[in-house]
């Protein structure tokens, strides 16, 4: 967030904070710039006992402090341009200013940046700018695709594809761009020639490109989020959202997570590594109609069919403010300096400071002269909002929207061909792997110190698992698997069976003993029941024998 203006201007909304400290404003801003440029807290050297390590870290920390101070000084004093401003005088209010009066009050170069292209027959236009703000790509709903260098009014290429076009996006630079057409997604060259037809992406409603990872993402009718690496051509991941058709997709520039807005009112955040959403938040009653993510990854603005606009803190995933709009918002965008643009019907409103604080009135408003709003995007490094509507394309001057000072190694609007080629090579060499996309990007390269007890437990578990595995393999090795011979499995099995002791089958000796005992018993019984000698013969048949 680049709120580094030297002095707060009055009339910018009632929620501007008053400075409490009475320091000199220059020292204040230098300190603020230095604080913003810090990449993290210093290492605590007191807790380190190892002297060699302590000395090394002290030296490294000194170098880091010196470089941060130098960067802060450069950013404070040596930046060539300053941000745009719009100041109202007296009883004027900034939201009352019409675009015509703003255009009349600025210099001719800036005035040339505000234009209207009337293209009423070829459908509502989707619009996107390249990352350095120099090229504009527009895709009309009836199949008109055009790439132009909009500041110099130079049309680079134009093509009529004769089928519905739903969304367009640039790839890594202006030489390649993608269009989501009726059935598939097509990639075009800067000459307008079709280079690829991506048949895996079917019925796509929204396209996006992650520049650091070279990933083209698409979401559409079937609710499948696809990641495709445009440098190697492989599909990295395909996630079924299972939340129905989706047409609202943005990416978080801070951690490269894809944010989707669904018809049931929930907003989900996805990474290519998880098949389920990393974050799922219920934001609105009714479908989510628009989304915008702040370039620093701090705020998320969502708009729903319930006419609410909600601002969320993305780091803590907590709601911050809620605004009410007169109609469900069609499109939202956040500029590099934190201006929130909200559009519905024929109206476009730009709000300043609406994310950090809750403001009561907008910064600027604009009524489209013709056509209904379809899409808009802030141009990077320019104070311009490009609007695509059903009657063509227009641009609106929004002072203070763009970052005035660009970094040549990140994005250069005045790039030569040679510089573009070099940057492409450097970007490919520095390409990040998709499996490093996590919600907290600062965790890359960090060493996680676990408590000793956890480490010990994990080690014990590993050892137990290892021992079990070794025992299993040893047992397996002990059973020799011979096919035939004396020790063949069938023979061993038979021997095992024969060794089984059964209670019903006593041994021979025992059998003999049993037999003898039985006979003895029988004999005794017989002797017991013997017929007495003096018994008459007639009675003998009555004695049991």
């Amino acid at each position: 967030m680049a709120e580094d203006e030297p002095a707060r201007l009055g009339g910018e909304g009632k929620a501007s904070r008053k400075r409490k400290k009475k320091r000199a404003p220059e020292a204040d801003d230098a300190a603020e710039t230095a604080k913003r440029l810090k990449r993290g807290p210093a290492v605590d050297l007191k807790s380190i006992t190892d002297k060699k390590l302590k000395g090394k870290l002290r030296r490294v920390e000194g170098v880091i402090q010196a470089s941060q101070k130098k960067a802060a000084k450069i950013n404070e004093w040596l930046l060539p341009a300053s941000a745009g401003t719009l100041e109202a005088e007296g009883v004027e209010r900034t939201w009352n200013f019409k675009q015509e009066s703003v255009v009349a009050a600025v210099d001719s170069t800036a005035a040339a940046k505000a234009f209207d292209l009337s293209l009423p027959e070829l459908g509502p236009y989707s619009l996107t700018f390249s990352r350095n703000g120099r090229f504009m790509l527009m895709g009309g709903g009836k199949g008109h695709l055009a790439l132009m260098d909009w500041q110099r009014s130079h049309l680079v290429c134009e093509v009529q594809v004769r089928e519905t076009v739903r969304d367009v996006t640039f790839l890594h630079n202006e030489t390649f761009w993608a269009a989501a057409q009726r059935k598939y997604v097509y990639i075009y060259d800067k000459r307008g020639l079709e280079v690829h037809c991506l048949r895996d992406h079917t019925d796509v409603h929204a396209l996006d490109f992650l520049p650091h990872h070279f990933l083209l993402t698409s979401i559409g009718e079937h609710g499948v989020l696809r990641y495709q690496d445009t440098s190697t051509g492989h599909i990295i991941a395909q996630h079924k959202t299972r939340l129905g058709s989706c047409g609202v997709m943005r990416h978080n520039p801070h951690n490269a997570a894809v944010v989707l807005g669904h018809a049931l009112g929930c907003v989900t955040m996805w990474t290519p590594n998880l098949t389920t959403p990393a974050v799922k938040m219920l934001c609105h009653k009714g479908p989510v109609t628009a989304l915008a993510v702040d370039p620093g990854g701090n705020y998320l603005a969502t708009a729903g069919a319930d006419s609410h606009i909600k601002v969320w803190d993305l780091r803590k995933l907590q709601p911050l403010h809620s605004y009410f709009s007169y109609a469900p918002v069609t499109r939202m965008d956040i500029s590099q300096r934190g201006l929130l643009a909200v559009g519905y019907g024929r109206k476009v409103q730009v709000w300043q400071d609406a994310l950090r604080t809750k403001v009561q009135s907008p910064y600027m408003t604009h009524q489209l002269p013709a056509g209904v709003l379809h899409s808009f995007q802030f141009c990077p490094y320019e104070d311009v909002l490009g609007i695509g509507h059903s009657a063509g394309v227009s641009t609106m001057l929004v002072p203070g929207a763009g970052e005035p000072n660009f970094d040549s190694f990140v994005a250069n609007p005045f790039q030569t061909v040679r510089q573009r080629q070099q940057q492409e090579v450097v970007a490919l060499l520095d390409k990040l792997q998709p499996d490093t996309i996590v919600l907290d990007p600062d965790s890359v390269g960090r060493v996680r110190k676990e408590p000793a007890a956890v480490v010990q437990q994990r080690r014990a578990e590993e050892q137990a698992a290892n021992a079990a595995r070794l025992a299993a393999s040893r047992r397996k090795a002990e059973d020799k698997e011979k096919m035939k011979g004396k020790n063949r499995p069938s023979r061993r099995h038979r021997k095992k069976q024969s060794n089984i002791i059964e209670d019903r089958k006593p041994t021979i000796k025992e059998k003999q003993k049993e037999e003898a005992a039985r006979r003895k018993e029988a004999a005794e019984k017989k002797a017991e029941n013997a017929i007495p000698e003096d018994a008459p013969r007639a009675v003998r048949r009555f004695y049991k024998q």
Partner: protein
Amino acid sequence: MKVKVISRSEEDYTRERSSDLRKVQRNYDPQLHQFEKAHEYTRALNAAKLDRIFAKPFLAALPHDDGVTCLARNPKLVNSIVSGSADGDIRIWDVPQQRTLRRLVGHTAAVKGISFAPDGETCVSASTDATVKLWKVPYAPFEAGEVQEDAEPVFEFQGKNAFRGIDHHWDRTIFATAGAAVDIWDHTRSEPVQSFTWGSDTITSIRFNPAEPDVFASTAVDRSIALYDMRRSTPLRKVVMQTRCNALAWNPMEPFNFTAANEDCCLYTYDMRKLTSALCVHKDFVSAVMDVDYSPTGREFVAGSYDRSIRIFAASGGHSREVYTTKRMQRVFAVRFSGDASYVFSGSDDMNVRCWKAKASEQLGVRLPREKHKQAYNDALLERYKHMPEVKRIVRHRHLPAAIFKAARTRRTVTESDKRKLQRRIEHSAPGSIVVKPERKKKIIAQVE
């Protein structure tokens, strides 16, 4: 109404003529530079991989007629090295042209040590034929045609027994020989000026301290390292270890420290002021370490071993940062660092002196400022991310010959098993009954005055 909108003029951001410099705009706001750490990590990985791709350290092999036993570096000339072999042949090499400049003939048995005088124009060599010969070393480089000539010694010193080592003083015209006893000789005298003995064992190597003009150290066959002061008549003190030291080298930047190459596959760094414990134990070899030499920067040293490899260690590093092997290189008997710390020479049993790069992936020759900056950036990245497992795996990876790999594995198994058993013995006995000696003191038996 007061309005100001960003409007950049093209002249401010582009150049007029092709002879002008291109303007570069910088803005250090972190919001413009997302994923800094991830990009840095990716670059560190790429730097590690490139480092391994460009690691081609072997430069040249300079042939002898018999196994190379000793090497010496000229303190005044960077592109020259002198090597002595087992048949008494001494050669002065022009390393860039990879040719012999002079053959110094005279010795009839193996040359055991060569050393240069401080002026760089005289060198002395000691051999098993009980002679020390003084040679004149021509200074000017040779350009044209056949230059390999044989040269005769200027002076010859006769000794009573075979010599095992020699070292010339870095300032005076005296040199010390190691043999049955330590003898100090002067250029102008044909008999030793001073003699030191301690016990009746052979002294195998000797080195003068690079800062103290009167102090030197020696290694002997009785497993001891002795310190001497020339101003006294008897040696100062000695430390007796469990195994014999083969060679010794003083750290040129910390002259109170020296490193000794030991028979037990390790090198020991000592502070001469406190010999009760070693400062550092350097372990990575799998066979006896034959020779050691420090880099002129004092930050690292090279050691050659009987296991056919040479390793480069950081001065305080317990393990080597680099290992060089070749199928053709047999037992290494001598190693030297070059005078500009860029090259390493190794003399081995296969009759060759090999020249290697000290930093295996370094680009030699004149480099553009941009190349130097990129190399420095890559080195800084590797230094910052060397603890990350992927980067560490790539940086550490070296191909070792099967014999060394297996021997190292066996040693590791043995040491781990010993450690485990010791731990268990400690666990199951009365606390304090088993005293564990630290590694740095374990191999020292006694210190004797």
